[in-house]
């Protein structure tokens, strides 16, 4: 019943995952001494950029992004502007949450903000792509009966996986092992990335196995 959409989802996710892989591998060719730990911020921004670009293009091409009723340029521009604003606000929001969770306030503000950017591009970006700049809809999606399409369910799963991954990424920080990946924010951003990748795999799988029970109301 959902075969077509699941197939689309799998290929989308494969594309995104491939882009993340490329973002990790390619810069090593061009940049001297590139590594996930040592030049962490560079890696982080590469990955974020790749994910953002690929998701925007793929979701736009697939037509998952809610189509606008009005086709005026002004309306489109305002949508774009609002999306950018929400993106930035979401970065600030994640930054605040991470600081409240115990990240240093001033010392490594850049690192914390980069983590916020990564989280935003892994979670909020997807919301923007799937639901458009509509906070009400975002909140609505994250309830048991809130999903209205396969893509909403997929969104729920990937966002939850990403956030849980980032949350679990904080666990190794207090340990006294002195490993490079314990440095702030490496473990958290790695956790978020791994969580996201898990979500990319888990979402289509979960939907595939539960396709019999999934019923959506039309929008």
């Amino acid at each position, binding site marked *: 019943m959902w075969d077509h959409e699941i197939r689309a989802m799998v290929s989308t996710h494969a594309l995104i995952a491939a882009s993340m892989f490329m973002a990790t591998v390619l810069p090593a060719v061009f940049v001297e001494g590139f590594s996930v730990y040592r030049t962490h911020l560079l890696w982080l921004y590469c990955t974020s950029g790749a994910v953002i670009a690929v998701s925007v293009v793929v979701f736009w091409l697939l037509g998952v992004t809610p189509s606008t009723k009005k086709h005026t340029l002004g309306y489109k521009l305002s949508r774009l502007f609002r999306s950018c604003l929400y993106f930035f606000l979401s970065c600030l929001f994640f930054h605040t949450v991470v600081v409240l969770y115990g990240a240093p306030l001033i010392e490594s503000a850049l690192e914390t903000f980069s983590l916020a950017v990564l989280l935003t591009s892994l979670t909020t970006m997807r919301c923007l792509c799937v639901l458009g700049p509509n906070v009400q809809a975002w*909140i609505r999606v994250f309830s048991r009966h809130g999903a209205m399409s396969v893509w909403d369910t997929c969104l729920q799963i990937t966002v939850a996986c990403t956030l849980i991954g980032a949350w679990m990424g904080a666990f190794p920080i207090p340990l006294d092992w002195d490993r490079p990946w314990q440095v702030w924010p490496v473990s958290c951003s790695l956790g978020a990335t791994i969580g996201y990748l898990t979500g990319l795999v888990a979402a289509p799988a979960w939907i595939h196995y539960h396709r019999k029970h999934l019923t959506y109301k039309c929008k």
Partner: protein
Amino acid sequence: MKGLPVLCLLLWMSAVYLVGIYLFVGGFLLVRLEVNRTSTCSDLLEPAGGSGDFCQGQPRFKRTVILIIDALKIDFARFDPSKTAPRPYENKLPVLEEVVSSRPSQSRLYPFRADPPTTTMQRIKGFTTGSLPTFVDVGNNFASSAILEDNLIHQLGQTGRHVVFMGDDTWESLFPKKFHRSLPFPSFNVKDLHTVDNGILRHLYTTMMGDDWDVLVAHFLGVDHCGHRFGPDHPAMAEKLTQMDGVIRSVIERLQNDTLLVVMGDHGMTDTGDHGGESLKETDAALFLYSPTPVFPDPHSQTDLVPTLALLLGIPIPYSNVGRSSYRYFIKKGPAGAVEGLSQLEALWINAKQVNRFLETYSSMARDIPPQRLSQLKDEFSRLSSAYLSSLREGRSPPPQLASSLQAYLTSVRDTCRSTWARFNPVKMAAGLAILALACLMCLVLSELSQVLIKGSGLGLKAPTALALAVGVVVAAAQLLTQGYVEEIWCLAAGAFSSELLFFWRARRLNTVTVSKNGTKASKFSRWLTPRRLLVAPLLIPLLRCASLLSDSYVIAEGRVVTFLVFSLVLYIPIQLNWNGLLLPPSPDPLKSAGLLPPSALSPSTVRKEGATLLGFVGLLISTLYLSLSFHGCREEQGSCQPSSFLYPLSRMQDNQLKNLHYVLSVISLGIFTHLLRRFLCHYGNLNSSGGTVFTARWILPLLSVCLGLHWAVSATSEDSFRNLAELIRVAQLALPRAAFCLLGLGLSLIWLDPITVFVKTRAAASSRAPALPTPRYRASTGISPQAELHHLIPQIYQHMRRSLDDGELSGAAEEPNRPTVEAYGLGTVYSAPLLLFCGLLGVGLLLLHPEGMAASFLLLLLEMAALLHIHASSSTLCGLHGTYSGGFHVPWTPVVLWSLAATQFFHATGHLPTFPSIQWGAAFVGFPDGHTGTLLPASLVTLNTFASHILFAVGCPLLLFWPLVCEVRGSGGGRACGEEVGDAVMEMRLRENPHQFSSSLLQLSARYLFLHGAQVFSSVCAAAILRRHLMVWKVFAPKLMFEVSGFLMSSIFLLIGVTLVLRVDGAVARWFKNLVPDASR
């Protein structure tokens, strides 16, 4: 309600926990009393007729060089030339073998048996005092680590020897100001292999060449640190040992004839490089003795080194020594030219006499040595001494076997002491663990079955108690028969264990009985064990918390970790509510709401309001969490940590402006604290009556705060600023805190004695609205009072109808249209008001014991409590509004988990840490600036100070039960418990309507709270048991265990106090109703 069963069950549960803890701690934490006496030169230890001054004689050696190579295992020191491919730690100290084989009369290499705990500090203590130090040596100076027992270094100083020390700075803290010269180097960083060693090597040889020393102690740490970092089987270890080989060589080259060289390890290491336990690998260190002149010493055990060295150096044996001098050295009048020394027998005799004297002193102070063994030893000594003395008096040579009997005596003393002090008792530890695990399980079962237990009076406590007593007595009798004496710990254990088993058996039976009665309800018991129910966030968080106690890094960062967990769980609440579609009013889409949610009891505005309240309080909670982080102290393990500036008392602050700022901040916090408490009581109309509690709230609480503010002001003024008022200040420093203590006691007892805060106002029948009303069983409402009522009060009015209470006369109700009604102010919060006031008053009292700056933290504590309560209330209202409320007053896991985590969080946020140096000893001197005579009062003051947050949260725990009722939304009563008429707020009177539910919920709440704290105790007990070899066990895990245990003890005591207070209120309310009924009818 049934108060007594609840209380008894809780009491019994805590008792079982405590027995488990007692058992474990008895096997793990070995406690020994320190004997603070010192030997002197004039001690008459020598046989009768001795010179009287022991130190006059010529010592065997003038000088001694003691090289301590930390963790020098005996395997490292041995040399086996046949090995072709030695491991990195083998054959790296060839010098020892070379010297021993080339100069056998001058040197010896021995295995050197250390006594557990094999940690450096305890070992240093051991081989300087000659006693068997345990983890907790109860001396009169708990705060500093200085050794107060008699020891070699002290004796050397007494006799005027110059002791020069270099190396591990532990020595400096153990023997402050005892050295002639000392060069300590930081030992803390385990990863640093070279700082200490290189520091020593810079000074060792020049010092040896110099002339200002008699005893030189050098403590190398590199080998130990290398073990911890890389393990023994690593090239770095080879390098380190080779370096040590070079050191020993060069020291031997520089030795003079009258000098003794001692090279030793303080303990060994396991194959992973750790130590602390009692395996042979850890206890067998190496001891190498060398002297340019011939010696034949023969020590076996580390404690033996002390008397041997003492007698060799001609100083008195330290008072608490239980070691045996190596008699072989003390050859009787050696060949001509040999240095004169003590004879074999004389040395042994001195040693034995000293040991006997110590035993007598110790047994008069403590009773942990079995009395039988003690009397045997005493008899043995008197027999030996009479034999020796009589032979001496008669001038004949003593019997030849006397020396060996003296040796046997000394050995048996040492073995007795060792079995008392230096062995973990694995059986006790395992039994304690088992009892604790069962107790945790029991708490869980109890909290799940509370309703069944209270309803069906099935689980009386009589049978478990009787069984426990019987089993205890049987075990005691069996012990008497087999061993001859009773170890009460095992009787307790057997009693607790049997009562636990009986409980499970009966719970199981009770469950099956209820299942057969009504199948739907009692599947509960079997249902909660499914992983789906256990793996939810509110139980996952405590699981993580317990797991975090098993890692030293997490224990060190505990304050942050707990805050992190609380924050996660708090964020989880709105997310979960949203997931269930409860946070926001349902979408206007008619299709959806019609299908999924019951249409009743929904009012979008109420939902929106409650949702906003919830989010607002989540925000408040998060900000208090974040702010509370700035009150944390620092452990020494946290390198770059800066302790909060609020931790220091104002009097220590230099900058006057900053001081004033802090003072103002504290006073403002205190003011807000007091104001908020009064504001709450006022808001719910609890300040109108004239009872004891109201008096406390109106007068004692503000007065107490004023007292506190003045006390801070007085204690912060520096002595020299008001010279002429010095006397006044002194008096005020004494009087103000004492007055505060008195007020506190008065307030608490007033609340206890008269907890009712209800103001009754009888209305004239004519003005009553009663005729217009239908005849519900109860009617209570807010705000019907006209403006003439006490203006700022919004009284809760409980219009009590006589007949509705009195079922017998119910039939006549309709005939009296003009019956009088009663308005009762504050009846809606009749339970929570006294409890909250009690909690608040206690909070102010505990604040008195803290540094002034902590006032802000206490305010945060109050705010966090309020936020938690409101979040809990709002979320249960939201659940209730949507009809998913489970019914009853049961408090779900989430708020209880948050509540118990908050207790730990504020333990840290009030500047405490689970380490002994961080205990705020200043608390003992609040109100007693000149010190104390006893120990009970200061100990309890310090305990109250340390566990302030545990106390407050435990006392306030029943508030979780009341708060959803206090914050009850009017017009929504229908969603609540038992089909109450829609309309009026009955608030806490619901509890009176359902006494069964009330007591079962109270029991459930308390059991859950106890379970959460008990689980923490259990996991820290596990940590101590599993990681007893860990490098950090005595630094991190054992102190953590003790703090966790004490915290649990305080929590359970004060939880019981809180529950008892609730029961008292309940009783008082019942009496109040009884009094009211005849009043109203007249």
